[in-house]
């Protein structure tokens, strides 16, 4: 599972046709799971401070985690503190389930997420 999550970042950047860079440091995730309470906290580090794909990466993480854990698990996703310029607004968006639900109903966004997670390029 971790491998799939780490690959979300470079695939996303490749899809947006950025100049090929040495993305040697990929997303680092830290995951805390409380099985008794059924809660998961995941923090991820976008590679650059102004990463415009931070919300898409967060969305990918949500979709992936939903597959891996039973439905009653509650997931909170945040960018690692200090790792992003719009940390507060990104965190708020990623944890607003109504916004997440609406975003995943958007066919273009959904396709991007699916490609990130299930693309053969992985």
């Amino acid at each position: 599972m971790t491998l799939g999550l780490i690959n979300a970042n470079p695939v996303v950047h490749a899809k947006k046709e950025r100049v090929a860079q040495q993305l040697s440091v990929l997303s680092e995730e830290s995951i805390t799971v409380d099985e008794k309470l059924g809660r998961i906290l995941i923090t991820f580090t976008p590679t650059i401070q102004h990463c415009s794909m931070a919300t898409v990466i967060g969305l990918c993480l949500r979709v992936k985690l939903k597959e891996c854990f039973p439905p009653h698990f509650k997931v909170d996703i945040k960018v690692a503190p200090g790792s992003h310029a719009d940390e507060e607004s990104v965190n708020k968006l990623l944890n607003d389930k109504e916004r997440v639900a609406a975003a995943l109903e958007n066919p273009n966004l959904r396709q991007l997420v699916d490609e990130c997670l299930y693309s053969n390029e992985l």
Partner: protein
Amino acid sequence: MEFLDANLELKEIQKLQGHTDRVWSIAWNPATAAANVPTVFASCSGDKTVRIWEQSPSTLSWDCKAVLEETHTRTVRSCAWSPSGKLLATASFDATTAIWENVGGDFECLSTLEGHENEVKCVSWNASGSLLATCGRDKTVWIWEVMPGNEFECIQVLQGHTQDVKMVRWHPTMDILFSCSYDNTVKVWWSEDDDGDWSCVQTLGESSYGHSSTVWSLDFNAKGDKLVTCSDDLTLKIWEADITMMQSGDGYAPWNHLCTLSGYHDRTIFSVHWSREGIIASGAADDAVRLFVQSKDGSMNEPSYQLLLKKEKAHEMDINSVQWCHGEEKRLLASASDDGTIKVWELATLS
């Protein structure tokens, strides 16, 4: 006040299954739950449908009477009955609001209101049924006038919120509109003259003891002089206004913060509803339903509220909506959840 002394429990009467995705909202039909009229409520879901549930007079269980499908092309987020109970408005992420009429058991879509740029999040009828309000992610609130022949005309688009508007609700007795938003504020909209322009007459924000995160929902007490709001900041806030001043035409009376209920919820509170008798129900992301009532020991000038009871694990997932039934026979509460089910509860004395 007598609720605090009684030994009460929230008894699960029925669990309703049918929706194939999360249930976002429920709305009791105001014309039902009267003598000889079977109780009806509507529910709407991420499965793009609306379901109508009716209580059988013989078995007393709720059965799904109709499924309103093939109209909305995305999640149906909110539903609201007109005060007469004859029309049902449904708001969807597909950016439209549909108006339905019950024609001999079948629900027909009479009209589709377009205009919002993206997801419509809520729809609300005013007390007389002459106006409709909708709101959405495009940060606007739309006011629609109900014209003869069930035509709807947008009379104004209200700008002011700086983010996604989550919910709108009309005051129970006066034509004053309230909206809650992702921008952490509640805005109050009013038109001084009957034909005048609507404008934002008050913003309940952080500087006026307001919420520090998204405000998801609000409701009024029966009298309409108190308001309760719920938020992602894990608190409920109670506000009050001198509505007699407003009702006598002396201009706008502002809402003032009365108290904040904090420490009771540890995850987002999505829904709040105030019963006729003064019990505030909350539905939250921790799967629990909580009931609050006014304390006995609060002074007249500083009333306080306390927890009456907490129903843990009311559902297996987040609760998106809690709604008291207006019926007078029993104290019924309906709850809707991410787990795809709706539950009907009765607040009764422990047997």
